[in-house]
């Protein structure tokens, strides 16, 4: 499939760049463990107090850790002119956004989801909740990445974006958090998590459909085309 080659190339490049700097790749995990450490200390460290809040804490931790990597999503491409080359070239920007989002999810979404058992262990998450937690996180982080690329694209050309990025992203995370956390809660209460997981997946599908075009539109705004 030659039509897909530019997107495969971008995906491969993003993954390769990330693996060349393995230390950076581990930073979100380190951050997540630190947040969990803070919660553990603040909650007194007793399993009776940790276990009931462990699932929500893991959710918030993973969303925050994934959020931290958003600032660097487009900035290097803006700084070295790659972005302007994309905009000038014939390749579909929307397609490139899909490649970019996929790379980000594989690196951070999947990475953080896979490290969840470690966080779960630290927070005394009941073992029977772990499978649904992992499923919800895998789906939810894919949706969160989509929200992230819109926000990152909107702020790509700004000199500083830190707190602004948080202001844009956090309110939009809310529905993902509700159903992601809801799925785990359902299992804890002995109910089926199917409804919450399906609604989480539905949102992710909607975000997958709409976010890359929105991000592409956002990237075009900053380029110096005539207004």
């Amino acid at each position, binding site marked *: 499939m030659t039509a897909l080659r530019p997107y495969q190339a971008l995906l491969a490049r993003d993954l390769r760049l990330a693996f060349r700097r393995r230390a950076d790749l581990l930073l979100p995990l380190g951050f997540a463990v630190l947040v969990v450490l803070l919660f553990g200390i603040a909650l007194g460290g007793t399993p009776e107090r940790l276990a009931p809040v462990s699932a929500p804490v893991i959710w918030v931790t993973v969303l925050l850790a994934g959020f931290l990597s958003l600032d660097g999503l487009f900035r290097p491409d803006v700084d070295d002119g790659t972005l302007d080359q994309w905009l000038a070239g014939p390749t579909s920007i929307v397609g490139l956004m899909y490649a970019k989002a996929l790379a980000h999810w594989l690196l951070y979404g999947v990475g953080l989801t896979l490290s969840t058992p470690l966080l779960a262990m630290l927070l005394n998450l009941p073992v029977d909740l772990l499978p649904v937690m992992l499923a919800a996180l895998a789906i939810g982080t894919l949706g969160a990445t989509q929200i992230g690329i*819109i926000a990152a694209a*909107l*702020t790509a*050309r*700004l000199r500083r*974006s830190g707190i*602004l990025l948080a*202001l*844009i992203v*956090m*309110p*939009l995370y*809310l*529905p993902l958090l*509700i*159903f992601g956390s*809801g799925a785990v809660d359902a299992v804890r209460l002995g109910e089926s998590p199917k409804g919450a997981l399906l*609604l989480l997946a539905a*949102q992710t599908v*909607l975000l997958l459909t*709409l976010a890359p075009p*929105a991000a592409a*539109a*956002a990237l075009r*705004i*900053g380029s110096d085309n005539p*207004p």
Partner: protein
Amino acid sequence: MNPVWRWFHQLGSPPYFYRFATRWMPWFGISALLLTVIGMYLGFVEAPADYLQGDSFRIMYIHVPAAWMSMFIYGVMALNGAIALIWRIKLSELLFLSCAPIGAMFTAITLITGMFWGKPTWGAYWVWDARLTSELVLLFLYFGVIGLASAYDDLRQGARAAAVLALVGVVNVPIIHFSVKWWNTLHQGETVRIMGKSSIDSSMLWPLLIMALATKLYFVFALLLRTRSALAEQERGKQWVREAMVEAA
């Protein structure tokens, strides 16, 4: 061309809009003020106390119109954002930018008055209820729009970037609302309906409708005022602005 459409196209021209705003702004402002005074009098003095909530229900006359406006203005803002993105009309960008602070103000009023109403009625300033939470998210969506627009050095780029965010918000607001609703609800149901019978007595309803109209008029007034100033600033190099300034002085 149909005269209504012609007027609409003319309104897109900065000098025409400036003159239009200068002429009509005082009328909107004065009528908003008058209606607010009448509505406040009827609501806070004339209307009978509620059999269940006593006098505390009177917060409704500020809370409910502000809540309606917080959502209405988001709609107007997003519409102008869409027009600005699609047709790149300069005036729509400014209208879009001017909507955000007014909407944020109404959202903040809704939240603050809601807290004062919540304390005697529910026993707490804040509860994690669907409407309260969506309203808080709405406030942050407004802040996001304002923050993003002002982070750009170039006003027009900032407006367009913020417009994309506002449209993302339009898609998300219903999702947020229904997901939070599914999650938790304590807020009383809607008591005023356009279709069918409202579950509120007419002596209590009239002041509410007057206040609703007053906030609408105030919004138009504030929008014209802000957009007019922004327009004069953006076009300050132009001949028509100089003439208008000389005329005003």
